[in-house]
């Protein structure tokens, strides 16, 4: 068995912004998956919003994610068969929220995509797709947002725009933000910056 993360001891406070940097393959995404309850550690405990993830079963963790957690991914993870609007509505629809469409339209307007509601991901640029993903992440008003290399697939100018948007919306919603990235500029915008090296977290 390969130890990817060894001595990781990390506490993240509410409304804190924190970035985790590290080389490719250093285990950043693994750590993020663990923090968000997408995966289970082989040992140790992870508490999310007062809940021990190890004590919850898969459905319990899913319920917790649905209630408290938002995600932004490097590869956007939009469903190709759904329009921008439908993609943003999806998390609300999963909770049977009757106001899904209104809220989704509102969020898409906030990220500047009012004109693109009915476009499919294929018809959108990378930056636009990531904006849809950000709208989707915030539409459930999550307590904590996990972003996995949110600018990894974007050019410099677009990246800047996306970073600005992410931080603005984070402030507006008073969300805790955890970003995994190797973009030093992005990392520095966070209140706290950590570096993952050989499975150990250091202050950067």
């Amino acid at each position, binding site marked *: 068995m390969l130890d990817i993360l060894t001595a990781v001891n990390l506490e993240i406070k509410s409304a804190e912004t924190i970035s985790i940097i590290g080389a490719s393959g250093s285990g950043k*995404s693994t750590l*993020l*998956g663990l923090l*968000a309850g*997408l*995966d289970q550690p082989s040992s140790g405990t992870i508490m999310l919003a007062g809940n021990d993830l190890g004590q919850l079963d*898969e*459905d319990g963790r*899913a*319920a*917790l*994610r*649905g*209630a408290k*957690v938002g*995600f932004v*991914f490097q*590869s956007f*993870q939009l*469903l*190709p*068969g*759904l*329009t921008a609007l*439908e993609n943003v509505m*999806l*998390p609300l*629809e*999963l*909770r*049977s929220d009757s106001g899904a469409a209104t809220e989704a339209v509102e969020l898409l307007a906030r990220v500047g995509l009012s004109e693109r509601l009915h476009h499919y991901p*294929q018809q959108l640029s990378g930056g636009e797709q990531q904006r849809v993903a950000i709208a989707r992440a915030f539409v*459930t008003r999550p307590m904590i947002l996990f972003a*996995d290399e949110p600018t990894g697939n974007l050019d410099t100018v677009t990246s800047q725009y996306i970073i600005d948007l992410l931080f603005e919306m984070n402030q507006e919603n008073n969300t805790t933000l955890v970003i995994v990235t190797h973009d030093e500029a992005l990392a520095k915008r966070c209140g706290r910056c950590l570096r993952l090296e050989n499975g150990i977290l250091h202050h950067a």
Partner: protein
Amino acid sequence: MPSHFLLAWRLLLRDWHAGELKILLVALLIAVASMTSIGLFTQRIERAMTDQSGQFLGADLLLQSPLEIDADILNKAKRSGLSLTSAISFSSVIVANDEFQLTHIKAVDQNYPLLSQIKISKTAYGEERPVSYGPAAGEVWLAPRLFGLLSLSLNDFIELGEAKLKVTAVLKHDPGQASSFMVIAPRLLMNIQDIADTGIIQPGSRVTYQTGFAGQLKDRQDFEKWLRPRLSSSQKLSGGTEGSAAVNSAMEKAEQYLSLASMLSVMLSGIAIAMTANRYAQRHFDQSALMRCMGASQKTVMQIFSMQLFILGLAGSLLGCILGYLAQQGLLLILKDFLAPGLPSAGIYPLLTGFVSGFITLIGFSLPALLRLNAVPPLRVLRKDIMPMPLSSVLIYALAIGSIILLMWWQSGQLLLTLLVMLGVFISVAILFVMSFVLLFFSRLAASLLSGPWKTGLLQIIRQRKENQLQMLAFGLSLMILMTIFLLRTDLISRWQAQLPEKSPNHFVINIQADEVRAVEQFFNQHQLQSEGLYPMVRGRITEINGLDVMQAVPEKNQRDEALKRELNLSWAMQIQKNNKLLSGQWWQADDSGKAIISIEKGLARRLQVSIGDSLTFQVADQRISAKIQNIRSVQWDSFQPNFYVIFPEAVIEKFPVSYISSFYLEASQKKILNQLIARFPTLTVLEIDAIMLQVKKIMDQVSTAVEYVMLFVLMAGMIVLIASMQSSMDERLRAAAIMRTLGATTAFLRRSQLTEFSLLGLFSGLLAISGTEIVAYLLYSKVFDLEFELHGTLWLAGPLLSVLLILLISRLYMNKVTRQTPLKSLSY
């Protein structure tokens, strides 16, 4: 749950334009439509057959008894809402112009006949007139022969016992004469009211009392159920699907063909459903992971996908039922001449069956894929390489195969056919699989000799060996099924046509005396009648098997067999008859003449449970004769030629009273010759079966059309599988092509390499398909349809060619995308 239902519905709608769902729905639609239409259709045909046998009997059910029929039975029938007709039949001598003649007499009441019509005419072979009543009191109708034998004309009187009755018509056809081969004496029809006046029937007279029943299907089924257990061993109830042997045999094969077609279209649709469901699932792994990531529980994801499945099943099954009903109406239109107007509808059962079958097909073939979808771990959102655990393949196959066998069996009610088809498919899949390895091996050899786009195309096949093998299997299997069903149709239809070739015999002459044989032959030659030859006929009853009384030797269920109740027509010959086939044992040689050996028909041998070496004893006139079974033959009963259950060699039964039988073809315009024949040989009986033959021919033509029509379903199902199998590999192929274009491949290069790849795929699938076709065809021909099997030379050329063309055509639809779109767009998809 309902809220998820809405979400499932919305996601389903949003997915609709992606394409797989359309294919899935169409596949389901075809499966359900073919099951429903064929189910509805066969039920109606069965009912039509029952109706038709009514036409032969003159009633839906006919009860015959040597004693007067109990009032209980008659009252019960009346209470059940059935209409009744009573008749008495017996043999007696009638007198006219001082001549005597043994006659078969039937006395009927005012309700006779309940179904169909009696045909009478004014002269012996003159124009027929159908009537729905029998003779009035004091009148009789006589068979044509009696006019010659007794030198009678219309309005003359005959004497029967103490009564004098007036002859008012020539009796041409009586619906109750289905078994008229057995009645050698000419017929007379009279009114039952005159029976008392004749004073003929006394206690102990040999008389058959008959009661015919007719009514609604349900009523008569109930009545039959009530009556059967109350019958004494001397009473006989006819009905059900008796009728013309030729029609029955053709219809039986047609029904088997329809069942087979239905099974195969279900199987093909199932394969298409499985493939599309699999692709649908793979394309939705991300959606499943994302939903889990967003907080949906496994249960919710499962609910959403299974509700989608439910909605699809509902839509496919409903639409399929409607389509099936319409298709069945079309089928009925084709067969409208055969089916009586006002035929009772097939009922709701086939529709229900089709509906439920839709769900079974869908679940059996797509559930495994959807279960995988449910098992996608949420971490996949971060790491694309994480795939759901593959389900146990035993589960997948068991589910699919289990549901298909269940369905096929349920639909067709034919376990043997179901198992044979499955066996054929299994063997073919195994062979196809092995062959695909061989083909790939040779491709590798060929690739080392080629260069440029041809090599790239070939390598593409070799590198994606697994995918391509699967595709070849799917493609080959569907082509195989298509070719089998096509071959079978062609061979069945040509056999039906061959069975009743132009100028098949349509008249029988019986009762030719030995001393008349030469004269009759001369008469045939003189009038250029195409006769099938004259066959000797001796009447004898089977009394013992291996020295044991026949009633003790034969199992109880066969003791009522017609062959045991009456005298059989025994014949002799040194050569086997044209339409007979030797199944086991040896035919005799010239020096076997005079030996007490016989050849027996296979059906009779089976029912009597006798085989070669067993000995049968016959009572002929007042003597007994025993003979050993030397061989067993099959007889083509529907050939309209004289056929015999038992044949002796020469010089064994010649000593007994013998008469001869012959059959010949006569055009309608030549009917007058019959008058001359009867005038010259007054003791002959001519049986006119040209009307029945014409009807049989018409039915066979219509059944052939129906068979072709049903083949359309299989064709459609086959096309759907081809499209589905192509689509399932398209994502990969598009990607590969886009990458090659990015790396500098020109459109021409890509086209050529694709052409090579798909042509080879087509060629290989085609070769696999034709090999499989021959195997399955062999099994079906020999075990089910009783057809002669031969290798199909032209198909070995046409099959692979067709396969290449089809694959190229379908691939064009998809691959054009690669050359039209920018590589970036193809890659970003």
